[in-house]
């Protein structure tokens, strides 16, 4: 099934970002936290720009601004000064220190530097979480999960068992996180959702402006995660070495329910079912009605959706959820792609794509040049993924339904709702309507060409 063409030396239009980028997003989901990137000024500025444009929120991230001297003689002084200034400016409750390619290449030991720093300053109560995130070491997705794991590791308290349930979410839109919180609320689940950037990266307009936004998972809550009754992690594609839920299970014995993002009927059922089993609570009527409406939507749209041949790309966790949703609705995934290497995704797809009607191209460690090529080859008619896929529309005329991070050429990436029964319904409508728009847009001229001008010689050509 996997069919990356022979080894290539040049990446042509990247489909992923670098590790520290994902780390920033994780820390954004922690109450009163700030991040400093240990490296040259550019890395942090690029990432801030990317995040700010997607979420339309100010994203203040410090940099140790390594210069030539720091690069040659070590960047400890820069990092210490950076921490001093960051604390003065923002008075954070927690600081994330992320490395970059440069810091890693010159061999900076951020664990040591930060612990020395805290001792010297008498700040041993200030939690500082140092995460090694060389840009060349992995994708932003890996940086995201690794940072979560490190935060839990650092904050894990000694408190005993509690009856709460950990909910660990992957990179989702703030609207999605809010929807998951709502489901948890209506199911009456006592939980710790982590990371929660639903407010910090999508805050309401209010005065006065706060430099450090409200919201985020509380530090005291994170400290309780090792004592929780169970963990539900939406991270079936996360590697074992970076899985925060896996860490909680292996080190603290918290049973792990590793589930896909609740998107599509099956995966949402799985989530709700798991909550039901863990809490013993019934599924309330309004949630059941939402499920019914999703079913109704699926039936109403099934014939339109059946014409869909989709290109799905982005972060592995999202890709898997979208592919499953496509399959449930008769939309045929023809190209499935992710920028990094993901063995878990490969495994998962193997089992679910087997029943597909035609040939599916699965591409990992890929780029947009390859995605484009394969999409064209397989006559895809809809693309689903972040806005870097816009060339598929511009160059190949394949409409793009924007989903995931980053979305730079449209507004509202932070408000896109796609999870749960309700969110899936909205997601499906976006897909179906895009297919319809495309169909209606060209239908008259197509039919005219085919039958009036008689170019449609083979009537079976379009049959699938």
């Amino acid at each position, binding site marked *: 099934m996997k069919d990356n063409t022979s080894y*290539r*030396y*040049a*990446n*042509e*239009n*990247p489909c992923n*970002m*670098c590790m*520290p980028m994902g780390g920033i997003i994780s820390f954004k989901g922690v109450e009163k936290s700030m991040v400093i990137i240990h*490296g*040259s*000024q*550019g*890395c942090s*500025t*690029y*990432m801030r*720009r990317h995040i*700010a444009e997607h*979420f*339309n929120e*100010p*994203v*203040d*991230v*410090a*940099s*140790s*601004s*390594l*210069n*030539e001297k*720091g*690069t040659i003689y070590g960047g400890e002084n*820069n*990092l210490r*000064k*950076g*921490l001093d*200034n*960051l604390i*003065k*400016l923002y008075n954070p409750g927690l600081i994330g220190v992320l490395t970059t*390619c*440069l810091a890693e*290449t*010159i061999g900076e030991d951020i664990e040591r530097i930060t612990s020395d720093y805290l001792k010297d300053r008498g700040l041993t109560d200030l939690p500082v979480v140092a995460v090694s995130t*060389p*840009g*060349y*070491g992995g994708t932003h997705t890996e940086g995201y999960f690794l940072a979560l794991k490190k935060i839990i590791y650092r904050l894990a308290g000694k408190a005993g068992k509690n009856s709460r349930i950990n909910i660990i979410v992957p990179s989702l839109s703030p609207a999605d996180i809010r929807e998951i919180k709502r489901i948890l609320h209506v199911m009456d689940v006592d939980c710790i959702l982590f990371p929660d950037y639903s407010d910090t990266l999508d805050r309401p*307009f209010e*005065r006065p*402006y706060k*430099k450090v936004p409200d919201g985020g998972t509380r530090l005291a809550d994170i400290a309780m995660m090792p004592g929780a009754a169970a963990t539900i992690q939406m991270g079936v594609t996360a590697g074992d070495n970076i899985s925060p839920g896996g860490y909680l299970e292996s080190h603290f014995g918290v049973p792990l329910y590793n589930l896909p993002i609740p998107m599509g009927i099956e995966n949402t059922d799985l989530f709700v079912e798991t909550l039901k089993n863990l809490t013993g609570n019934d599924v309330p009527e309004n949630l059941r009605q939402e499920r019914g409406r999703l079913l109704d939507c699926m039936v109403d749209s099934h014939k339109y959706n059946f014409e869909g041949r989709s290109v799905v790309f982005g972060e592995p966790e999202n890709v898997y959820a979208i592919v499953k949703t496509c399959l449930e609705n008769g939309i045929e995934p023809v190209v499935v792609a992710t*920028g990094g290497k993901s063995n878990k995704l490969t495994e998962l797809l193997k089992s679910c794509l087997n029943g597909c009607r035609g040939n599916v191209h699965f591409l990992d460690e890929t780029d947009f*040049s390859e995605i484009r090529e394969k999409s064209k080859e397989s006559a895809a008619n809809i693309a689903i993924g972040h806005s*870097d896929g816009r060339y598929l529309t511009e160059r190949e005329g394949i409409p793009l339904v924007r989903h995931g991070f980053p979305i*730079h050429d449209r507004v509202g990436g932070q408000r896109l709702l796609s999870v749960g029964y309700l969110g899936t319904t909205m997601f499906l409508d976006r897909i179906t309507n895009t297919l319809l728009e495309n169909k209606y847009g060209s239908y008259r001229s197509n039919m005219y060409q085919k039958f009036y001008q008689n170019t449609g010689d083979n009537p079976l050509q379009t049959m699938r």
Partner: protein
Amino acid sequence: MEEMEVVLLTGLPIEERRDFILTKGKQKRQLKCDADSVAGSVSQRACVYCGARVVLNPVTDAVHLVHGPIGCASYTWDIRGSLSSGADLYRNSFSTDLKEHDIIFGGEKKLARAIDELVRKYRPKLVFVYSTCIVGVIGDDLEAVCKAASGKHGIEVIPVQSSGFIGNKSAGYRAACDALMRLIEPGEKKYVIKSKNINYLGDFNLAGEAWIIKRYLSRMGVDINVVFTGDSSYAALKKAAGASLNIIQCAGSMIYLASRMEENYGIPYMNVSFVGIEDTSNSLRNIAKAFNDPEMAYKAEQLIEHETALVKPAIQRYREKLEGKKAAVYVGGGFKAVSLIKQFKEIGIDVVMIGTQTGRPEDYRRIGDLVDDGTVILDDANPAELEKFMLEKGADLLVGGVKERPLAYKLGIAFIDHNHNRKHPLSGFIGAVNFAEEVYATVCSPVWNYI
């Protein structure tokens, strides 16, 4: 910068930042600028590589290959609105996607193979290879790899020395200019110098701005030899030495190239600005003056009169609505900042706070001359300072880039996008109307009534 007073910088927690901030007033003090960013200050600046990429990326038919890890290429893929009349190879972001293994064993081989691969696939005449932070550290010899590839393929493969930590964005401009110099062939022998043929430096053809200026000049009887670098191509850049005059708009990025071309090829240069009616008109007049051509001067006057008449009424209408509003400006370079002050004056707006990421001392001197007493001037600002001074000075709008926009909006302040990603021209007479219209659209929007 004389006649400047030290403001009470209360509430500025970082001591070291004080030298970078001034209020125009009575006491004498030089504004500190062109220095490394203060660690942890949350600078809005980008890096050397970014500066180099901004300048070179508009070369339309070149392969732009980033030698480094994936992120650097990912964050700079097609994020700028430079337009092309021909090739569109420049809209791709190519990367050697260095991984752990390459960091340990070196990336030279991978780079050489990546160049081979791209040359085979796209058949370019020119490849720019950008170096990123780690390339310098792992010791890859970019120069040697490029030279070998150049010989092998019979095309130009030019290294751009843009390792992130060697300085700030200005160092990147320099690296880009060095790369461009390597491309230009000596003039005299090969090309006949046409007398009314000029190079236009420092326009990246955002939203077709270089095309607008090209038309103005051609109406005056002046041909543009090549634009650096908006909508430029390998062939056109090669002939750059065949011009009789260089006009520079974005001095921050291009003055170095202009002076090197003067040194090497004897091409004189002059500064111009096509931002706002006043600057545009004066620049066209000055070009005619430089050629000492009365007919050209006459045509310039006609053009100015004609175009001004077309846009004046609209601008006047906006001015009536905007008179007395206060603007804050935080942009990349000094050229932009200076022209914005003048452009705001044309629509009746005073600038109350102004700063740049990479302004040079002479830029700040000009800024100091142009703004009123009490205006805050700052170099390499951070969000905390922008917030503080915009609120203290009662700014109604901010001009800035993508990172500054959400801050302005959260503060309930109007915003003008003045970055490389915008989709409408701000140059020339048409640009002056667009600018006024954008200011009007954001300052006078009904949404502010609800917050």
